[in-house]
């Protein structure tokens, strides 16, 4: 996976979670559905944002698999 991909996935996860939270607050979506989306998206947000800022700026794949 490339650095840019990790950033896109992390931000997309946060964006989707925030959007469903907003829709639930406005009454367009049941609260439980927004909570379910947050439960799925939050781990993706945490891991992909950390992978993004952890990655070096080169072209190498992250995370390195070996040793």
């Amino acid at each position, binding site marked *: 996976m490339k650095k840019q991909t990790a950033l896109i996935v992390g931000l997309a996860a946060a964006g989707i979670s925030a959007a469903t*939270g907003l829709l639930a607050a406005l009454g367009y979506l049941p609260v*439980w559905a*927004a*909570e379910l989306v947050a439960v799925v998206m939050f781990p993706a947000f945490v*891991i992909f944002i*950390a*992978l993004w800022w952890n990655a070096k700026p080169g072209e190498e794949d992250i995370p*390195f*698999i070996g040793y």
Partner: protein
Amino acid sequence: MIEYLLFATFIGLLFHGIHRKVIARIQGRPGPPIWQEILHTLKFSFKETWIPKTASHALFIGIVVVAIGIWSAALFLLLSGGSILLLFAVYLLHKIVEHGMGLSTGSPYTKFGAIRSVISAASELPLLVTVVAIYFFTHSLSIADIAAYQEVHGPLLIIAFPAAVAMYLVILSKMHYGPFSIIEAKEIVSGNMTEHFGVWRAALEVAYALKTYVLLYAFVLIFIGSLPLALTLLAMLIVLVSLSFVCAVTPMLSPYDTVTVQSLVTGALVIYIIILGVIMG
């Protein structure tokens, strides 16, 4: 929704820092600053990250995702006043996470941690006893109903004190540096977490911060009642400091002593439940 999770993560990490500080001060050491665990998590997220060649890749990464996911779900469960049985289910899933994390890497140290996680399954029994004891009084397992019961009859901490002790023991068994923390004992390096480093460890720290927040919040909700946020946080802090005190003055038990103590406490609580059953019909 994500803002609740970020808030709980931040407070959970701060609580971990306070936990370390309190332990250090009781033991006569200056200790780290209380925000150390926040820095610690950030530090891990910048460290080199890889997956060991001997690891099951899907399980190695998947277990981290599941760890954050189940405690996120548990937080929403508490916020929505859901069933205490579902909280119990999340707690059991955490046992699978501990075990799976240890088995996913291929390292002998993590496998020892995983095995210790399984033999300390007795730590789940007091929670089951807590659930039964609470039902005797409230006739409901909904957290919202339990909170409503306490508004009328007073805190369950007083009414069902042995059940509160059981839940307290459950939280103690999941605290870092505690007498029951055998799965992450130093003689097996970091136990089941040994091979999860870099981003994976940072994500696990997030999951454990959520876990600490959820367990302390659950204790306050179930045994004291629904309070304003500031008072809830204060009550959680008081419970945490008391746990830190126990951790500071109690050496880590051997795996077999851990199981023995937890089984004895569960046995005592089963007797309490039987007496409750006889008295309350």
